[in-house]
């Protein structure tokens, strides 16, 4: 019984973890290139959720087809925030960029509150379910997982097979080196910030395929915190590390629930959160480069 439940939870965890991983890639990309922690991360996920919701409800666009629109909107938002705020703070203390990204998130939340009210919304897009006996997987979830994996692979190919991607990788390794090689570092910053935001908004679309309800302007906060843990699992500066970090995170969150549930007197769900943050600290201390990377 417990074993069945545990395997069901772990499978669900991997699927959810894949989407979480995708939702963290943008954060890691931005940190990797600009060394800026986007504290307003969750708000961009929220924007993606509203993009999917609005396109579906107003124009009947199926959520997967909202991905390109989300990418465009996200990149545009990224450019706007980069050139109006982030760019001038790159050389300043951490404090300034932390507060600025947080404020960007607040602006988005408040604008969305004015546009959509603070009511929790949702949409209904049923594709059927896959019943495995020990657990049930709706097709929409599988599609979201597949989409996340695909985007992860595309990002990888872009980084490794295109000139633009390789230029960005140079900047991750060393600003100075990239400058010497004739790469316009400032433009790479702008581009990666905007791609990072674009990916995050896209992940918001995919997340609604997973959970199409409860969409509200303040939904992002808990995703920001999760993304921090996942990013650290993946090494903070590595977008695909983040993807695998997501998988690990999903496994741990869902797996540890079953274990904590065996201990009387505990609230297992809250303990899983405690566990994930405790893990964050341990990893930061022992393996700040993430779980996957050697050295």
């Amino acid at each position: 019984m417990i074993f069945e439940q545990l395997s069901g939870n772990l499978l669900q965890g991997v699927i959810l973890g894949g989407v979480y991983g995708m939702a963290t890639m943008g954060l890691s990309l931005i940190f990797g290139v600009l060394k800026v922690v986007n504290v307003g991360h969750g708000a961009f996920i929220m924007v993606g959720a509203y993009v999917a919701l609005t396109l579906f409800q107003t124009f009947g666009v199926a959520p997967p087809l909202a991905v390109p629109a989300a990418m465009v909107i996200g990149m545009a938002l990224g450019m706007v925030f980069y050139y109006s705020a982030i760019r001038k703070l790159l050389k300043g203390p951490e404090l300034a960029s932390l507060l600025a990204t947080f404020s960007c998130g607040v602006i988005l939340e408040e604008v969305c509150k004015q546009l959509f009210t603070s009511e929790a919304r949702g949409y209904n897009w049923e594709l059927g379910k896959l019943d495995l006996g020990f657990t049930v997987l709706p097709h929409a979830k599988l599609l979201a997982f597949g989409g996340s994996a695909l985007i992860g692979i595309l990002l990888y190919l872009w980084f490794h097979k295109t000139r633009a991607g390789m230029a960005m990788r140079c900047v991750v390794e060393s600003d100075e080196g990239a400058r010497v090689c004739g790469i316009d570092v400032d433009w790479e910053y702008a581009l990666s910030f905007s791609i990072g935001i674009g990916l995050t908004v896209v992940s918001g679309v995919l997340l609604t395929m997973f959970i199409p309800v409860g969409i509200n302007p303040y939904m992002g906060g808990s995703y920001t915190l999760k993304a921090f843990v996942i990013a650290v699992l993946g090494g903070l500066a590595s977008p695909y590390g983040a993807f695998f970090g997501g998988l690990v995170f999903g496994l741990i969150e869902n797996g540890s629930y079953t274990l904590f549930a065996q201990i009387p007197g505990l609230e297992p769900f809250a303990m899983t959160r405690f566990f994930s943050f405790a893990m964050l600290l341990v990893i930061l201390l022992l393996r700040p480069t993430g779980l996957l990377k050697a050295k």
Partner: protein
Amino acid sequence: MMNGYRAYLPILPVAATYALLLGIGVVSPDHWQLIAQLAFYCALGQAFNLFMGMTGYVDFGYVAFLGIGTYGMAVSIYTLSDKGLGIGVVLIGLVLAAIFSLGLSLAVGAVALRLRGAYFAIATIGVNEGFRYLLEGARIWNGADGIIFSRHLRQGVGRQTAMALSTWWADILVFGVAFLAAVLTLVYMRNKVGYALLALREDEDAAKVMGINVTRYKIIAFITSAILAGLLGASAWALKLTYVYPSDVFAIHYTVEAIIIVLLGGAGTLLGPIFGALTYGAAKYFLAIVLPGFQLLIFAPVIIAIIVLFPDGTVGLLKKRLRDTPLGKFII
């Protein structure tokens, strides 16, 4: 000291500001709660600045110290109010708040202070959230139910005293914390601690080579700042509001407010947090009255504009400008 009292002159504007605030509150008791809220922001800014401003380390989980301080006071009143200690429960509460925040800061410091920059910020967020969910998950101190102890306070000290504690003495304590934080900031600045912190803020590796035991000084600042936060939580959140929910007192939003206050005024300055707190507190209060529901929409872009245009903060800027004028010795 060679400079003697002159080095401590900048405490005068601080004392004057707090005296003025208190004076307004006493003359016009109608505005006491507003004054109290401003004092809370002053204390929050001063206490946060003592670590963040002086070391440059951004503790994004700072609110955890306020939270655990709140619990210190709550636990004391909740469990000891029927022991006939009278007002003693409040004193024990303050001591517990200090001990709890000291303990937590030692634990956090041992782990997180090994990290730098963004890693430190993320680790401290992790501490705050992790601690909150530990309380909820393991049902420590009633877990998510929190502690509601209004009745206990009243039973312990009597109805009139309880009311006076919540609506007057709690706020006086907040003033006390704010002033104590300012005094400690200045004392640190004028002593070796301050120079060590200045050096490590600028260049931690060079500071080590100069013979500075950076870990030691970081922990001194961290603990001082944490204990002040614990006392602040015990007075402004526990004694004043007489209840505590974990979701309320571990809310990351208060850390952000502390950052805003310090940044508005100027990180690492003595007067900056006060100026930041008064501007922020007053603006927030009036916006809530004039444009209810739109405060954040107005605040967020203004904050971005301020950090882009005045990265040193207002007092930081003044300090630079006034360095060579007679006023310079007051403005630090």
